[in-house]
Every structure is written in structure tokens, then in C-alpha cells.
């Protein structure tokens, strides 16, 4: 692996360009001609206004989308299916983890190992969280060595303004990993905070959370900053002995301690920010320990994520804007991580291990958004990234299961470079119809060059929206893929092609339905292969997914309701059903505001029957039964600056499972959990006024 990266000319996994230069030339020529042949004509504002006039005030003030087109756009006009989780949703529903927030959306399933990670499957493809690109404030959060993001409790949801979830391939803008979709977490701006908010939560399974947000914004000087911190602890579920299907012993531990810190400072068009997450969790649920020499208490996984960035947004002229960003990323499995304690046949044969894996990335991105006349808008971007990645885990081992292993040595860091260029042209052909053409060209000295195109037609007429989308995407294997298990240096990229039709109709301003129908084909899949010696990742076969996602939203007065149903038919190259994916899932929710202060929110999730990757020893078959899970939240808001919330997860105490792709038979999900939260908001305006008065008098 080291050799491959250190000397790109010998790398066996370099991808050949999938499109000839003549295609590139044609694309450029097309864009070039468009800029002259299609100058601004009569302004087609009728449709926009008609659509806007049918929106409620809240919808009008609703958040525009920045993710799918890398520019602000209304959701109905973006050439993608986008669903949004707002800060209000997070607060009212009492979400504690990112997966809880995603679980109420259509098209998303999980393999929650109720341990140091949780895996998110969008649109019918199981993966190690490396087919989804996760960003916080526009900077990637996927772990650098494996390319997979981490699920769990380390996300500081109290400081989230919204979560934009883009369904379907998006490599044409974001490059590798944006295969099943993109999740962009936008944190609160100083302007959104202004004041101090503190919150404390406690619940069963030793759950505890404290968070704090402080923001200051001076409108006169267009300057502000915000600071937010979160500390969270939880055992999440009781999986000991019989409760966890005898996968683990009665003494197993399953803790998770999370710490997060967000800081943001903004002066006019310049913003600097920092997002830090530290997660230390038990690694017991990674494998079955009963009947093995592995110990399931006292072992852990300790990882941190640090993103630091500086952004400059120049938007003064009316017809173009410039967005520049420089960022530094650090995703490190810390050197106190103790993932293995193993017992030998006698006490001297066992050992403890410590692992260490630092990874760093430095990147810059520049993007120009240009309006050419009235009908054309163009985004052009260039990206350069330089990575320093550990050649593998640096491991140390003690001579006994009772003794700590010494600190691991620093691993070799391998360097690689990525240069990318992307462009997206939106042409408003007639008032109600817009076409988007885009492509991204990536050149990596690890995996060579890749060009991914995208084409979208978006039609908006009064209350009706239709989108026809063709997109491609890829995921390049990372060092972890090459080395995991027995290792396989010959891996090449997975490639996705997708065709999607989206239809939406607003019957009234309160009542909207949406339907997405898609066909995705993932070729050259990177799948886990087991043999007598162990496992490794190999390129094998493909996954064909036909899916339908339907949503109905009804909001009027004191009522807010939603219902969604997802059909997912994922099959392999032989037509066999893909394990871990259920064909049928559904969600329904209702919220009622009894008064301005008192609210009740009930949400139900139906998970259809799905196949496990292997026979489940405990039940003797390969099926994970279907389940209905009910969650509820009762909130009393704004009582002398206090909010009180009682949240009950899995209210019916349903015994349900997620699939497993390891030696664990299946993963029991958390039992009934109840939590109580108190929030206090402090408006600091009077304090500032007093200080200001004192300064003035002096």
C-alpha cells in the first residue's frame, strides 16, 4: 500500500478516465456557446411568484438549500431530492443522535451496532458509512483513513441550525463517497444564537447530557461569534447476557462518552470556524465475545475529529459571487485506544492491544457563481487537497491480559494529492423549466482520474413540481479498504449510475405530497469476502435498486403531521435480495400544540422484515423480524425562560433487532428509554446595554 501511494506510477488500482477528452471538450464548448448564445431575455418570474404565493409564511421564511447546487436555491428548484431536518424538529422531537434524526426520513435504514459506530444505509445499499458524504458546515467529516463517517452521539445537535439530506449520487459536485447521498449539517450562526442557552438531560441507561451555546452579534459592525460545547454519556442499551442474544457476557460494558466543541467567528464576509468531536466508546459490540477468548469489558475505541476552516464569501456584485475556503482536518484514532483484551489458554498467553492511527488533510476550495443574463447561472469550482494518512494502525501489545500495552509508535504517514474541477450550469429554458448540466473531474495520485456527470430537468408550475435526474457517482477505496482483514491491494472504485423521477404537489399551503421513483445501479461493488483464513474487501458484482419514496405532509394550526412509505427492491447481479435491506419501511408522526407552551409529539417507525447476512444462531433462520417503534416527546416551552421536555424512546419497549455483518448474530436495539431535559435561555442584551452605558459614561 505504501509503495502504491508513494509511487503512483506503480499503483495497480489507478482508474482509467471513463470519458475521453473529446467529451470534455464538447462539454466545455457547450458551456462556452451557451454563455454567448443565450443572453438574458424576458425575465420569467411568473412561475416563481406563483409558487411562492402558495407557500405559507413559515415556508417562505424556510431555509433555502445550499447543498445540492453549492448555491442557495429553493428546495423545489434543486436538481435533487432534498429533505431537511430543522433545529425546531431536533428540539421538538428530542433527537439525541444523528441516526435518531435520520430515522424519521424515508429511504434510510440502519445497522446500529449500539456500540462505537452505527451504519446508515440510504436507498438500499449496505455500507460502512463510506457511500454517504457527511459534512459539517460544508467541510467533510468522513474519517480520512476509511472514508466512512461515524454515527453516534458525538454530534452537538443543540448547535445545529438544520440538516440537509440529499438523496442520490452527488459526486458531480462533491467527488468520492457522495454515492448514496450527502448529509450536510449546518451549525448555528452567531446571529441565530445571540445570548446564552444551557441545557441538561438525564435518563435511564446512565444517559446524561449537558450542553451550552453562547452567541454574540453586533449588527452595526457586522461582527459576531458563537461558542458551543456538549458533553454526553450513555450506555444506550442493556445487552448483557440473554438481553443481547448471548453475544456478550453478563459483565460486558457498553459506554459512550462524547464531547463536542463548536466555535465560529464572523466579520462581514469572512468566517472562521472549528468543529471538534471526541468519542470514546466501548468496542464490545464489534464482535461476539461469548465462547471466544475476547474480553467485552474494559475495551474501547477513542477517536477525535477536528475540522478548522476559514471562509470568505464575496457577494457584493449582483451577478457573481466568490466563495473561498481553506480547511484543515484531523481524524485520529487516539493512542490510548484499547480495542482488544484477549485471554490465552493460560493467563500468560493473553494480551492487551493499543492502536493508534492519525490522519490529516489540508484543502482549499474556490467557487464562483455567475449569473449570465436572466436565464443562465453557472457554478465553477476548483479543489485541491493534500492528505497525510497513516499507513495502517500502529499497534502495541502487552504480554498479559492484565497489563496495559505500551504507547504505540507513530505510524508512517503516506501522502497523496487530489485536484478537482467542477462546473454546473443551470439554464432556465422557459419560465417553468430549468435544465442543470454539471460534471466534476477528479485527479488523484492514488486512484487516477474520474469524471462524473449529472443532468437534471426541473419543472415548477404553480403547485406542481417535477424533476428528472440522471446522476453518476463513485467511491474510491481508501487505505483501510486495502488493508482491512487479510487486505486486498487490487481494489478499484465502486461506480453508481442513477435515474430518478420526483413529483410533488401542494394541494393547499398546508397539504403537500411528494413521490420519488428511482433506479440505481452500483457496479464493481466493494463487498466483504469471508474465507477460512479471515475476511477482506473485494470488488464483486453489483447492486440494482429500484425504489419508491412517498411522503405526505399536513400542517395546519396546532397540528403537524407527516406520513412516509418507502419501497426498496435491492438485488444483486443474480437477482438475489441484498441482505440488511428491508423492502418496506414507513414513518408517521403527529404533533399537537395544546397551548403556545405545551406540545406533544408522537412518531412511529415501521421496519419491515429483512435478511441477515448469515444465519442467526439464536433463532435458527436468516430473517430479522419486522417491528414498530413508537417515540414520544412532551414539551413545555418558554416558562420564564425555561423549557422542560420529557422524551420516551421505544415507548412500547419493542424487542427488535438490526442485522449484523460480523460474528454477532444480530443487534438488539435499545429498550425503553426515558429522558428528562431542562433548557434555560438567557438574553444578555440588558447586560450588554449596561456595559455599554458604563463605558459611555466613563
Amino acid at each position, binding site marked *: 500500500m505504501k509503495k502504491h501511494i508513494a509511487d*503512483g506510477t506503480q499503483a495497480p488500482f489507478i482508474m482509467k478516465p471513463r470519458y475521453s477528452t473529446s467529451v*470534455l*471538450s464538447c462539454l466545455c464548448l457547450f458551456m462556452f456557446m451557451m454563455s454567448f448564445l443565450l443572453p*438574458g431575455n424576458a425575465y420569467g418570474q411568473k412561475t416563481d*411568484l406563483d409558487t411562492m*404565493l402558495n407557500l405559507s409564511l413559515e415556508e417562505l421564511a424556510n431555509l433555502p438549500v445550499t447543498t445540492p447546487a453549492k448555491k442557495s436555491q429553493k428546495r423545489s428548484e434543486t436538481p435533487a431530492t432534498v429533505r431537511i431536518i430543522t433545529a425546531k424538529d431536533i428540539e421538538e422531537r428530542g433527537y439525541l443522535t444523528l441516526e435518531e434524526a435520520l430515522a424519521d426520513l424515508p429511504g434510510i435504514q440502519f445497522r446500529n451496532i449500539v456500540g462505537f459506530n452505527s451504519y446508515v444505509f440510504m436507498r438500499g445499499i449496505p455500507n460502512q458509512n463510506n457511500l454517504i458524504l457527511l459534512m459539517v458546515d460544508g467541510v467533510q467529516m468522513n474519517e480520512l483513513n476509511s472514508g466512512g463517517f461515524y454515527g453516534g452521539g458525538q454530534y452537538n445537535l443543540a448547535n445545529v441550525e438544520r440538516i440537509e439530506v440529499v438523496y442520490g449520487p452527488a459526486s458531480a459536485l462533491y467527488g468520492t463517497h457522495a454515492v448514496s447521498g450527502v448529509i450536510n449539517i*449546518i451549525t448555528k450562526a452567531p446571529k441565530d444564537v445571540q445570548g446564552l442557552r444551557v441545557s441538561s438531560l438525564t435518563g435511564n441507561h446512565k444517559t446524561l447530557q449537558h450542553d451550552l451555546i453562547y452567541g454574540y452579534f453586533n449588527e452595526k459592525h457586522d461582527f459576531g461569534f458563537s461558542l458551543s460545547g456538549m458533553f454526553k454519556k450513555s450506555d444506550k442499551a442493556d445487552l448483557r447476557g440473554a438481553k443481547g442474544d448471548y453475544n456478550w457476557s453478563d459483565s460486558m460494558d457498553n459506554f459512550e462518552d462524547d464531547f463536542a466543541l463548536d466555535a465560529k467567528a464572523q466579520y462581514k464576509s469572512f468566517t472562521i470556524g472549528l468543529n471538534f468531536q471526541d468519542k470514546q466508546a466501548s468496542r464490545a459490540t464489534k464482535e461476539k465475545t461469548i465462547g471466544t477468548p475476547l474480553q467485552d469489558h474494559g475495551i474501547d475505541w477513542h477517536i477525535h475529529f477536528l475540522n478548522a476552516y476559514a471562509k470568505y464569501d464575496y457577494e457584493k456584485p449582483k451577478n457573481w459571487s466568490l466563495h473561498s475556503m481553506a480547511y484543515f482536518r484531523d481524524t485520529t484514532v487516539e493512542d490510548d485506544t484499547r480495542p482488544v483484551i484477549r485471554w490465552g489458554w493460560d493467563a500468560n498467553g493473553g494480551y492487551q492491544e493499543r492502536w493508534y492511527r492519525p490522519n490529516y488533510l489540508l484543502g482549499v476550495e474556490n467557487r464562483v457563481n455567475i449569473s449570465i443574463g*436572466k436565464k443562465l447561472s453557472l457554478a465553477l469550482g476548483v479543489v485541491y487537497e493534500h492528505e497525510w494518512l497513516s499507513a495502517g494502525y500502529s499497534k502495541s501489545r502487552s504480554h498479559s491480559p492484565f497489563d496495559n500495552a505500551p504507547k504505540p509508535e507513530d505510524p508512517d504517514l503516506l501522502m497523496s494529492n487530489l485536484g478537482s474541477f467542477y*462546473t454546473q450550469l443551470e439554464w432556465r429554458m422557459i419560465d417553468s423549466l430549468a435544465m442543470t448540466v454539471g460534471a466534476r*473531474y477528479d485527479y488523484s495520485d492514488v486512484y487516477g482520474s474520474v469524471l462524473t456527470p449529472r443532468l437534471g430537468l426541473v419543472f415548477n408550475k404553480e403547485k406542481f413540481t417535477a424533476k428528472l435526474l440522471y446522476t453518476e457517482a463513485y467511491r474510491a477505496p481508501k487505505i483501510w479498504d486495502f488493508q482491512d482483514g487479510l487486505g486486498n491491494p487490487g481494489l478499484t472504485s465502486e461506480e453508481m449510475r442513477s435515474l430518478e423521477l420526483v413529483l410533488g404537489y401542494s394541494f393547499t399551503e398546508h397539504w403537500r405530497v411528494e413521490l420519488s421513483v428511482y433506479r440505481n445501479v452500483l457496479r464493481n461493488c466493494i463487498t466483504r469476502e469471508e474465507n477460512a483464513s479471515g475476511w477482506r474487501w473485494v470488488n464483486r458484482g453489483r447492486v440494482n435498486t429500484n425504489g419508491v419514496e412517498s411522503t405526505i405532509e399536513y400542517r395546519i394550526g396546532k397540528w403537524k403531521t407527516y406520513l412516509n412509505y418507502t419501497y426498496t427492491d435491492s438485488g444483486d447481479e443474480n437477482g438475489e435480495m441484498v441482505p440488511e435491506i428491508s423492502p418496506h419501511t414507513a414513518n408517521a408522526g403527529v404533533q399537537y400544540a395544546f397551548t403556545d407552551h405545551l406540545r406533544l409529539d408522537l412518531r412511529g417507525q415501521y421496519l419491515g422484515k429483512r435478511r441477515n447476512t448469515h444465519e442467526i444462531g439464536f433463532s435458527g433462520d436468516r430473517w430479522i423480524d419486522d417491528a414498530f417503534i413508537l417515540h414520544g416527546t412532551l414539551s413545555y416551552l418558554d416558562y420564564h425562560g425555561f423549557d422542560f421536555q420529557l422524551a420516551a424512546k421505544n415507548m412500547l419497549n419493542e424487542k427488535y433487532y438490526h442485522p449484523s455483518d460480523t460474528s454477532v448474530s444480530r443487534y438488539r436495539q435499545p429498550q425503553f428509554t426515558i429522558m428528562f431535559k431542562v433548557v434555560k435561555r438567557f438574553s444578555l442584551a440588558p447586560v450588554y446595554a449596561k456595559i455599554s452605558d458604563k463605558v459611555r459614561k466613563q
Partner: protein
Amino acid sequence: MKNSVNRKKRSPGALMIAAAIVIMGFSALAADNEKDSRADDIKAVFVYKFTGYITWPEDDDKPFTIAILGKTSLLEPLKTIAEKKTVDTRPLLIRECSNVDDVSGANILLIAETMEKHLEAILKKAEEENILTVGSSPGLAKKGVAINFCPMEDRIGFEMNLNALKRSGLGVSSQLVKLAKLVEEDRPRDAGGELK
């Protein structure tokens, strides 16, 4: 441990990309300086929507009038809305005004940036004639304008000065208040409404 990057000949495709960037960049810079029409549309629709959330003095027999004082790019979208919409059963009228006296009889007054120097006279007029004042410049709500559009990240939001609404004798729905960022005036007014 240094990494050697594959060096390739520059392809015609790469040159075309570079040429396209340069040429399109220049053509964009040369393009006419168009207004940010989407933001204007949103603001115009907001202004129209406000009509449903304010308690107006009863005056059913007259058209509902939105006066625009000074030059603003909201004029066109508001005219388009007026062609399609009514306020309850009242026709919607958009009136362009060049001085404060022309706004008499209006229900909503949209204040263009160029007219902010006349703010004191405008506010006095609005109080006397129960007119809802709407602005779109930083700090206007603090200066006494009832509703003022302000950018909130990449959204259009608005500030609201409840005292200004009260002085104009207008009631406001709590639904509208919930969406607004409430601001207080920089300088308190006395009972006569004069700025101190």
C-alpha cells in the same frame, strides 16, 4: 516518504476547461448588473402575505394600497402580484410615490433606501394614518420602522418593531410575531411620538 505525482501531458480537454473558465469569467463580468431577483420576489411575496396577519382599520370599499416611496426593485414583482391577487375582496393597488405626502391613504408603505433620509417625516405620517411601514436596510426597525427585511444566513428574514406597530394603531398576529426577530428602538420616543 515524499510522494511523486504522475505527470501527464496536458490534454486538450484540460486546455478547453481552462479556456472556458477564462472566457466565461470575462463574459460574466461584462454581463449587465442585474438585481437579485429571487430575493426581491421573496420580499414582495412577504409584503403581500403580511396583509393577512395585520389587523387593518375597516375600510372595505377602497382598494388595498401598497405605496412604494422611492425607487426599489420590489416594484415589478409587487405589480405582478397585484395583477393576480386581492386582499380579501379588495383589489390590490401598487402606488409609486416620490414624496411623503403622496403616501396618504396607503395601507402599507415600502420605504426605498434612497428615502431613508426622510424617515422622521415618514414615521410621523405612518402613525397618523395607520400605515404599516416596511423597510429593507440594516437597522431600520431600530429606527422605528415596523417591519424590516434582513438577511439571515441564506434566507430572507425580517425584524419587527412592536412599538412602531402599536403607534400606527395596527394589531399583529402572533404567528407573524413568531417568525420575526423582535427589536427595540435605539432611541425611545415620548408620548407625542417625537424622537428624543
